[in-house]
């Protein structure tokens, strides 16, 4: 076992959570199974470079971070017509069968210790269901974390030829003096020829440790686009993944992060090409100031049957301070050579010639630098479909610069 099991964590606790929410038997069983698996499971893999383990999850004190019976959040959900957007628990009465069928089908609760912990203990989250042929724009979920620990599980199901754009934002409510833990699992089951854009904006206070795994299963001709924004938290471990299982399915995994002070951001983007004619585009842009650190891993895995694949990956980290640190490892695994693929990562500072060009036109140096940083994020901003999300992200970036 790789992490200490919190003492207040028992089958009893899990039953209490499930009972309080009047959950069906199958869900209680799923929670208990996840709980049982904890003993056998390891923490998620982290990047290691010689002499260094970049994200030290072992050091997290789950014993004191996890307080399963006192979870609290305030979440608002806006849904356009035609699409079902419900708190996970409420959805169970009407959509129980569908949820039972799909829950855990994309994110295996037993992926690792943290996913199992989340599946056993989650109390919040959203169920989004887009029926066949429905086009829905601007689903907005805004969550506020009001407890020491919070576990969230979101399931998105899109039926054939439907489309939806989603914004999920999480921030901290009442401030708690001690460290906190937020866990967020998101699964997307994208039906044939459907389109999903799932945007996530994490801006938790800097006492919070965050773990997030988002994963999609893309069916034939479907498109799943992820936008992952991380600005808050003390430490974030974020994994955004798509399995391109259907022929001609596509995905974009677009990420933005901006760390400052001694924030630690461990962001990962992964795609598995498992069918013909699939396309993936992974774009991550990150900025680090002060003593912030980032670790990035991007994986493009082109399977044996993935003929005629297009797969691209770019990661760029911009360092605003000499004390910040970044590690990036883009990985390309090719088992079918009928592939057009590229992968690149860069870590650098603001370009001195760009800066001089701007100051020579009267713009004060600091303002010029800020404009360059804002401009650096534009490729990410341009991908965002939900206007409110773009505005929020822009604002958070601007606020951090000044």
């Amino acid at each position: 076992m790789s992490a200490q099991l919190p003492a207040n964590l028992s089958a009893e606790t899990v039953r209490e959570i499930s009972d309080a929410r009047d959950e069906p038997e199958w869900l209680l069983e799923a929670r208990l199974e996840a709980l049982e698996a904890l003993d056998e499971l390891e923490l998620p893999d982290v990047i290691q470079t010689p002499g260094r383990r970049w994200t030290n999850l072992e050091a997290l004190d789950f014993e004191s971070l996890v307080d399963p019976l006192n979870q609290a959040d305030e979440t608002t959900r806006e849904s356009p017509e035609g699409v079902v957007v419900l708190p996970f628990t409420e959805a169970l009465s009407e959509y129980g069968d569908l949820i039972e069928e799909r829950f855990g089908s994309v994110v295996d609760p037993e992926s690792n210790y943290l996913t199992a912990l989340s599946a056993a203990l989650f109390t919040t989250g959203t169920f989004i269901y887009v029926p066949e042929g429905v086009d829905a724009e601007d689903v907005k979920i805004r969550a506020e974390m009001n407890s020491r620990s919070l576990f969230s599980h979101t399931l998105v199901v899109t039926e054939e030829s439907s489309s939806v754009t989603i914004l999920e934002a999480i921030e901290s409510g009442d401030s708690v003096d001690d460290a906190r833990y937020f866990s967020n699992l998101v699964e997307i089951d994208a039906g044939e020829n459907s389109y999903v854009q799932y945007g996530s904006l994490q801006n938790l206070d800097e006492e919070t440790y965050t773990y997030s795994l988002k994963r999609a299963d893309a069916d034939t001709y479907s498109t799943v686009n992820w936008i992952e924004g991380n600005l808050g938290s003390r430490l974030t471990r974020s994994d955004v993944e798509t399995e391109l299982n259907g022929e001609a399915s596509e995905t974009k995994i677009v990420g933005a992060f901006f760390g400052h002070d001694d924030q630690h951001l461990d962001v990962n983007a992964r795609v598995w090409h498992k069918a013909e004619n699939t396309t993936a585009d992974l774009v991550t842009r990150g900025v680090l100031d002060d003593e912030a650190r980032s670790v990035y891993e991007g994986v493009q895995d082109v399977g044996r049957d993935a003929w005629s694949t297009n797969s691209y990956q770019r990661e760029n980290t911009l360092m605003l301070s000499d004390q910040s640190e970044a590690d990036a490892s883009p990985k390309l695994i090719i088992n079918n050579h009928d592939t057009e693929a590229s992968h690149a990562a860069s870590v650098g500072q603001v370009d001195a010639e760009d800066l001089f060009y701007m100051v020579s036109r009267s713009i004060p140096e600091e303002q010029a630098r800020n404009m360059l940083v804002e401009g650096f994020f534009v490729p990410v901003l341009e991908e965002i479909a939900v206007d409110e999300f773009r505005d929020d992200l822009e604002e958070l970036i601007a606020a951090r610069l000044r």
Partner: protein
Amino acid sequence: MATLEIKNLHARVAEEDGEQILRGVDLEVKSGEIHALMGPNGSGKSTTSKIIAGHPAYEVTDGEILLHLEDDDFGDLEIPDDVRTWNLLELEPNERAALGIFLGFQYPAEIEGVTMTNFLRTALNAKIDEREELLFGEDDEEEEEEAGYDTSPMEGNVDDGEVGVAEFQKLLKEKMELLDMDEKFMQRYLNAGFSGGEKKQNEVLQAAILEPSIAVLDEIDSGLDIDRLQDVSKGINALRDEQGTGILQITHYQRILEYVEPDHVHIMLDGKVVKSGDASLASELEDKGYDWVREEVYEAA
């Protein structure tokens, strides 16, 4: 009437054991004058221009660069007597620009994510602010902090600043027309994906917007086709005629000098201005080449 005065300028690359590049440059450019600066590759022309603008890659080891201002240089703005002469080497690059120095780059930077409109309006407002601060002292700190807060990379500073969005759009359109530039460039990112000629044209456009007292244009003519060369020349002449800008034009070719007729021509060799004359010097140079200058200079020495 402004005068840029470069006296005995010596400079080297600002690194340990950095190469000495300028070895005593003397030049004087006044408002309304057009000067051409010519010289073989590597003789120090671009370096001179960048040092005027304040590039941090160079260290000035001797000499000075002064800017003398006169009453009418900033339109109706009264310039107090005690701030009419500036030692540029003591000023930050943006302060130099605010006092009317403009550098048109030989290789303009490409800046993704910052639109032309946002960039130029920000620059123009920053210039107006900074100039007031330099001439009349610190302005209200609070006001400054507030300005530029609510900004976005797509639309620019939403706060109006000195020159508002609508007023700026009008100004930009007018100047683009003069240069025969397509309006589509307004919303494009600064120089990103611009062709070589478009970038050069954009440098002149920026000068037209910022209305400098002295513009140093580094090989503004290289890479321009015949039509664009004429547009750009028209832009430079308009700068001189309408805004009274003094021009220091770095070039390798006689060609542009036919459209933008220089009052003075200077030749730089090995980090020094070794010969000056009128427009006929450029045509003489075209005929005889740099060896002729070299022989003349080094024989005399």
